[in-house]
């Protein structure tokens, strides 16, 4: 049983690899050689049975009849579980808003009643000796439903609109400063534009999967999660088992993007069935099932109103968001929140409203808030720049705030202007077509666009343990996850630097609930939070080593002043004397030494407005007849604090920018307004950019260190790349064609009617 995942740099790893170096991923070799074990792949002691979920074919109503006899008789079938025989679970309970922590840990019963709340909600689980047998038997189940009319139109004119208590991540629902309506109505230049953004699906490459195994009343789950503690707590609530009896193991994750923050049906199904059968059970969602069962970004209509004087100074800025949510559980994406901090204007209004639909709940999808909100805001700013005849960069610089315009506190660091300037230079912004639709190369219309990026910087409280043994081997431990971002590597770098040892002396163990608890990977806080905990653990360990070295009877450094400890090149120097850690530990602590450190939110979390910034530049080509829009090149320039590893950081940002291209040009999960199901629920029909869509993406960093967020001076970057990226592409499409599409994604059918047939 590979229950102790250890990732270690190979011996050849660059010895001087420190924080800030472009170190190769230390888990890279394991991954490319197939030795990194993912959720569904773990080999455990007893052979697991295979579960397959059957989803409802209606979106709202009741199961009247469920006939499982044929399925039970099918070859290989061990168990057919439905609401009639599933173990008792707590009620789902009243809607919890996304702001309270319970959303992460609440009971999420499955197969618990005859109610159907969304299309493809699990109505049965079939467990068989093989996956194929289970899948086949699932289709033999006969169901009769009573269908109730449901709400499936995210922009229905007659829908009942309500105001949520807070938005996701705990932001106030609305904000109002000055007199927005008054200022807007008298502004000499006005933009009033509505943008539609669609449902989108995360589609991590690895589907949600779990293997559950009970030993007595103790449960072990191998799964794919971004946050081990959430799954542990969620399962504890759902199964009515104390959390300490549940072990979650999740060392490698094939992408999460926010879809793996909370408990999903496959894990609960596996745990329930394994308990009933007293045998390990593994269950994965199919790709098709993921669209309904693993979260989505809500569909929205966003109205942005900008009032400015003729010089382009904003006098009024308004951003009103109307988004879909689920009838049974609220999720209010904070799409107007970035507007609260991006530009100065004395009169401001932001609001969030929701429409209840009979779908599954929305979830946190890479850059919740910014990804959707900046598509609207940053296109509106572009519209204003054009109306004013101003360079979009000049307009943004003109409205650069001194302090956070709504919180009134200073920014911890803000280098948006530098990003725009550096980017403009590198990209060749001055060559952009000044008049939309004016540059043609063969059959292509060429356009340039840009947009600003902003993303809140957060710290998630948590801790880490660092130990050193008598051989000088260092082990870093935390329940933190590496969802493909590079966490293993950067934590090794932090420990290597802080302890003054080579990278290949560091082993990193992650993704196990037995290890010190962290806030996991989410909200771009994973690297900074867990690296802070490791940093602090290293400091504590240094202290411990130095104290022992100065005082231990067997220490060659005995009698030195522990305060003057210096750790470098695998040795401890105290004053004038130095000793290798290996020899030192063998004498003073043959058992090894260990220390814990934690990350906590300090005062600066409140007294400063903390964000990472960036600027995106895109060049697109649009076919003169068909309206096919293709990216030609893209540049993102980012100021995101200290960059722990430029290589993994660059990959994160490129990935985010590609998401922006997808959001601008092709991604949409289509909800059928009659049946309430997501129609295009596979990767042939749900389009994400493929290689040919991404010819050239470049990333640059503006040097920055920010001492307000964490001792490393770093900021989160996992989501920054797709904040504003889509707007840059959309603005480039406009610049190419003169056709402004406010309905995302900008597919060719929305462009070509505006192009004169050429």
């Amino acid at each position, binding site marked *: 049983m590979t229950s102790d995942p250890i990732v270690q740099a190979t011996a050849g790893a660059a010895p001087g690899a420190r924080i800030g170096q472009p170190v190769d991923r230390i888990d890279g070799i394991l991954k490319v050689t197939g030795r990194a074990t993912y959720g569904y792949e773990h080999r455990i002691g007893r052979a697991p049975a295979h579960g397959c979920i059957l989803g409802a*074919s209606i979106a709202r109503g009741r199961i009247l009849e469920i006939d499982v006899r044929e399925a039970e008789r099918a*070859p290989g079938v061990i168990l057919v579980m439905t609401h009639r025989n599933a173990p008792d679970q707590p009620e789902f309970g009243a809607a919890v808003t996304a702001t309270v922590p319970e959303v992460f840990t609440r009971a999420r019963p499955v197969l618990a009643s005859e109610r159907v709340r969304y299309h493809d909600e699990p109505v049965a689980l079939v467990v068989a000796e093989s996956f*194929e047998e289970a*899948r*086949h038997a699932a*289709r033999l189940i006969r169901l009769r439903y009573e269908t109730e009319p449901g709400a499936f139109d995210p922009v229905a004119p007659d829908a009942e609109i309500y105001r949520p208590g807070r938005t996701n991540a705990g932001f106030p629902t609305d904000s109002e400063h000055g007199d927005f309506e008054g200022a807007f109505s008298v502004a000499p230049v006005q933009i009033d534009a509505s943008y539609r953004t669609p449902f989108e699906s995360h589609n991590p490459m690895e589907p949600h999967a779990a293997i559950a195994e009970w030993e007595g009343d103790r449960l072990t789950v191998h799964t794919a999660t971004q946050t081990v503690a959430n799954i542990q707590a969620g399962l504890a609530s759902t199964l009515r088992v104390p959390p300490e009896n549940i072990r979650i193991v999740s060392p490698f994750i094939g992408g999460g993007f926010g879809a793996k923050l909370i408990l999903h049906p496959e894990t609960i199904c596996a745990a329930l069935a394994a308990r009933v059968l007293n045998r390990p059970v593994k269950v994965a969602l199919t790709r*098709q099932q993921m669209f309904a069962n693993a979260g989505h970004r809500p569909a929205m209509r966003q109205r942005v109103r900008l009032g400015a004087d003729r010089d382009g100074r904003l006098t009024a800025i308004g951003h009103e968001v109307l988004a879909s949510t689920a009838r049974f559980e609220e999720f209010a994406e904070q799409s107007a929140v970035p507007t609260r901090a991006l530009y100065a204007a004395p009169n401001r209004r932001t609001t969030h409203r929701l429409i209840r639909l009979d779908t599954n709940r929305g979830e946190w999808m890479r850059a919740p808030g910014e990804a959707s909100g900046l598509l609207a805001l940053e296109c509106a700013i572009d519209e204003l720049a054009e109306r004013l005849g101003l360079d979009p960069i000049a307009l943004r610089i003109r409205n650069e705030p001194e302090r956070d315009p709504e919180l009134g506190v200073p920014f911890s660091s803000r280098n948006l202007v530098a990003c725009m300037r550096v980017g403009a230079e590198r990209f060749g912004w001055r060559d952009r077509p000044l008049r939309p639709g004016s540059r043609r190369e063969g*059959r292509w219309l060429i356009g340039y666009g840009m947009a600003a990026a902003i993303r809140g910087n957060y710290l998630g409280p948590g801790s880490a343990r660092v130990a050193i043994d008598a051989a000088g081997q260092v082990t870093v431990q935390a329940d933190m996850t590496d969802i493909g971002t590079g966490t293993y590597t950067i934590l090794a770098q932090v420990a290597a630097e802080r302890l003054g040892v080579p990278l290949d002396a560091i082993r990193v163990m992650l993704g196990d609930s037995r290890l010190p608890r962290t806030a996991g990977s989410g909200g771009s806080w994973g690297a900074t939070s867990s690296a802070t905990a490791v940093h602090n653990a290293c400091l504590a360990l240094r202290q411990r080593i130095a104290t022992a070295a100065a005082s231990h009877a067997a220490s060659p450094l005995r009698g030195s002043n522990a305060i003057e400890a210096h750790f470098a090149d695998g040795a401890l120097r105290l004053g004038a004397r130095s000793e290798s850690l290996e020899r030192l530990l063998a004498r003073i602590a043959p058992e090894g030494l260990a220390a814990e450190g934690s990350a906590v939110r300090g005062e600066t979390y409140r007294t400063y407005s903390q964000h990472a910034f960036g600027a995106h530049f895109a060049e697109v080509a649009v076919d003169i*007849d*068909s309206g*096919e829009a*293709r990216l030609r090149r893209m540049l993102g320039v980012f100021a995101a604090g200290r960059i722990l590893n430029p290589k993994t950081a660059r990959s994160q940002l490129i990935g985010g920018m590609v998401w922006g291209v997808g959001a601008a*040009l*092709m991604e949409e999960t*289509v909800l*059928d307004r*009659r*049946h309430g*199901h997501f*129609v*295009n*629920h*596979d990767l*042939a*029909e749900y*389009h994400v*950019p*493929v*290689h*040919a*869509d991404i010819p050239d993406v470049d990333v640059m960093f503006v040097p920055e260190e920010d001492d307000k967020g964490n001792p490393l001076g770093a900021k989160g970057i996992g989501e920054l790349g797709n904040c504003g990226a889509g707007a840059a592409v959309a603005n480039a499409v406009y610049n190419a064609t003169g056709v402004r599409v406010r309905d995302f994604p900008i*597919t*060719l*059918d929305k462009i*070509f*009617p505006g192009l004169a*047939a*050429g």
Partner: protein
Amino acid sequence: MRPFTYERATGLREAAAAVAARPDAKFIAGGTNLLDLMKLEIERPTHLVDISRLPLRRIEETSDGGLHIGAQVPNSDLAADARVRTRYPLLSQALLSGASAQLRNKASTAGNLLQRTRCPYFQDAGMPCNKRVPGSGCAARGGYNRAHAILGASEACIAVHPSDMAVAMTALDARVETILPDGRARTLPIGELHRLPGDTPHLENNLAAGEMITAVTLPPPPPGRQLYRKIRDRASYAFALVSVAAVVEVASGRIRNARIAMGGVAPKPWRSAEAEGALADRAAGDRSYAAAADAALSDARGDGHVAFKIELAKRALRRSLADLTPDR
């Protein structure tokens, strides 16, 4: 996936006979379409006859200067064949515009012709679909039908045939060779391979039970220039919204010969006699091309999301013709 039995075909005739012998038997070639549909239980064969190892992988010259393409020639091999690239460039272009490199390596020539529609309601067993369950209704009507048909559809079904290769072959007047379970061979023009849906959208082609495609033959390349143009939602790995396969020969400023087929618009690869008629012997130039495009789409109907395809197809046609005759 339903349980099924499997056999590896030992010969052409044996393969055909094996499928004919059992009502729910099917051929499997590359499996890139059939297996996906079996997993979803859209296809539910009880017996599979694997024909992928039959000796049908050669591309040979015919005595009249055409090509004889074995039914098992992978799409990637066909696209890369030097004779195809020089003499039938539109076929190579069409193949390379389809699917992904991995799929093309696996996909066979015959399997490509007989691949089934990508209509998402067809692929979802929970939805009404006349093609899957005759009489159950058509969920695409009034639903999400952006990728559906504007020509040749019926009340019962508006699905399109998704193949690129077949559109190119249709423009080239390809012929499809088959073997019947009794061992007889027959040949049919590619235009007669697929059926229009009418009231029976579940019947998609004119092959008899157990009839197996053994080859596709191409007559000598038609005079003139050739082009395949595919319009789609992303740069690669997407089905055509509209595609055009065109061959045009111009002499002294007049169109001597034109072949026009379209993909993504109809339940079968759509050869447009109307467009060809409108071009015949006309002066090469935008006016003729516009007339041809209007003629090709004169019967087009687009209800719902798909309406945009009518204008898009016209543009694609006009542009393809113009691109084929740069110097006129």
